[in-house]
């Protein structure tokens, strides 16, 4: 097992290298980060030249990639534009844990920018994932036990609709119903945008209240797909011989369902969850935009539109690492749940 983990981690290195290369080439061709530098005025030509030298944007793209990867403190760069490199570089590069500084927010380290936003995104994502798992297991198990009942058919239909629903449609519809109309009808209504009411401040209760709609919208779509999945695997498992044995020896129904059946039925679910968590991070872009949630998705949107390579690369590499780590965790959990699986 340890050997397997080490080998998988070693395989991840070339993978991350290819990903970073693809993204870097794409990003460096998406526009001019120096056009306005995030302000309103156009950058003056002489400033432009100086800034391009400072950020190394005048160099060929492979040199830029090299600087991004391993830094430039081993070489000298030309700061005054006379063609002679004289100032030693200061960047350390990603391999030594430095993601560089933002091009549009002057001098702000990428890691600081990401660290400011990451907790917000994680809060939203982890809550959503927990809600999804709890509800899809409840709904899935219930409709497996009452196969072909009215509720089972209803769940099937609703889950198909939910699966086809773009997140923004659910988000807008739920905003319209629970915020706009509830307010109109004089009912207690939910807040729509932001993380907290600035007049009250960032109290846990406020944040929780502001999380209801985004979590609801994201969870609804995934619960639809997941509960179908739980239902299918539960139906399969419930027909196994060992379940009949468990019944025959008089175990309580609850134990059979949630200890014997669910553990095996959750196997494929683990895979789906492991593969879907990065999708959830992706879905967060739209959700965070609609609900004005100050997370990584919005950070990404703001900086991708201004061609801010270091920040965008930082976010994307973080997500890629997360994807790879989650795949590995999925495999390990899988082996733990199903002792028949042996990795060599």
């Amino acid at each position, binding site marked *: 097992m340890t050997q397997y983990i080490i080998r998988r981690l070693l395989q991840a290195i070339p993978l991350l290298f290819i990903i970073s290369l693809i993204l870097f080439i794409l990003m460096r061709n998406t526009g001019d980060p120096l056009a306005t530098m995030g302000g309103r005025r156009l950058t003056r030509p002489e400033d432009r030249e100086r800034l391009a030298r400072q950020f190394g944007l005048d160099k060929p793209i492979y040199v830029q990639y090299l600087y991004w990867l391993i830094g430039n403190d081993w070489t000298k760069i030309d700061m005054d534009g006379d063609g002679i490199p004289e100032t030693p570089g200061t960047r350390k590069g990603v391999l030594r844990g430095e993601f560089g500084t933002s091009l549009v927010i002057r001098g702000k380290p990428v890691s600081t920018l990401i660290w400011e936003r990451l907790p917000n995104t994680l809060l939203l994502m982890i809550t959503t994932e927990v809600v999804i798992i709890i509800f899809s297991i409840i709904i899935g198990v219930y409709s497996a036990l009452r196969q072909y009942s009215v509720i089972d058919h209803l769940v099937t239909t609703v889950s198909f609709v939910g699966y086809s629903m773009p997140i923004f449609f659910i988000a*807008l519809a739920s905003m319209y119903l629970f915020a706009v109309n509830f307010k109109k009808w004089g009912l207690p209504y939910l807040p729509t945008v932001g993380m907290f009411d600035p007049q009250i401040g960032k109290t846990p209760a406020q944040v929780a209240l502001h999380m209801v709609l985004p979590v609801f919208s994201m969870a609804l779509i995934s619960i639809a797909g997941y509960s179908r999945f739980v239902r299918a695997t539960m139906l399969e498992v419930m027909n196994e011989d060992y379940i009949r044995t468990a019944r025959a020896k008089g175990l309580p129904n609850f134990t059979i369902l949630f200890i014997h059946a669910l553990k095996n039925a959750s196997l494929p679910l683990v895979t789906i969850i492991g593969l879907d968590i990065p999708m959830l991070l992706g879905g967060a872009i739209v959700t965070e935009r609609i609900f004005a949630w100050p997370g990584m998705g919005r950070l990404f*949107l703001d900086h991708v539109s201004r061609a801010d390579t270091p920040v965008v690369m930082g976010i994307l590499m973080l*997500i*890629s690492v997360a994807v790879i780590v989650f795949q590995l965790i999925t495999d390990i959990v899988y082996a733990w749940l199903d002792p028949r699986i042996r990795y060599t």
Partner: protein
Amino acid sequence: METPVESMSVNGLDALEIPTLSPRALIWRRFRRHKMAMAGICILVFLVLYSVVGAFFVSESYANYTDTSKRLQPPSAEHPFGTDTVGRDILARTIYGGQISLLIGLFAVLVETVVGVLIGAIAGYYGGPIDSILMRFTEAMFNIPQLFLLLVMAKFFGGKIPTIQLFGRTFSGSVIVIILILGLTSWMYLARIVRADFLSLKEREFILAARTIGTSNLAIIFQHILPNSMAPIIVSATLGVANAILSEAYISFLGLGVRPPTATWGNMLDGAYNYIETAPWLWIFPGSLIVLTVLSINFVGDGLRDALDPRTLTQ
């Protein structure tokens, strides 16, 4: 695909009485039984008619005609779906937007299928170093969440493709950009399926036979192996159309999709959330059309999956 033999195997008489159905007829018969899939087909036909026939009643210039004195009007007899933020008629825009959205869905899947099948077929058939290089690349693309990759690619290609004239209509270059990037960010799954199919099929006897009589590699790939792995390709392509329409809506919603004045169901939603309290008709109509399209395509895909599954071929 194998012809059903069960009806013949009982005895000779039965074989004479029951006409043997061709595989295609069998698939169609099984597909017809799938009620949801048939409903999906009907809705799809209706939606295509809506956006094609509708164009005979309203002109594209009307769909793009702005009248700021009539902005954000609620649905009325004159504007059944209301007007948008610059006073354009939303009904007319959903008709023309539908054409573009459906076109984007179809052509993006075409790009996706061509790239996915080519990469999967080459990797699976040739194996060895070609396979490992292509699969590392596929894996790398797979590891970047699609929406992020789409946004970066949308920026990368943005403005690089000029506007073109086709069938007397102007297609903004951004339509082609969207088709390209949607195709280029979604082929990985298909490539994996096709590769797996090729890996097992290339070891079969009929391929060995084809090779012995000197059939070229290209002919083996496209004439002998590919037809045998059509079923998963068709299902994946069908579901791909739904995905492409959804993805188009996502990037247009984020303002990086098709540029106005060209309407798509997706970019009609851009900025609609600013008017959530005052003008819900901005997002209800195009949004519902997207949901309806995606839902019915998913039903059709589900029906096709059941109908094409060789394990249920004799039913």
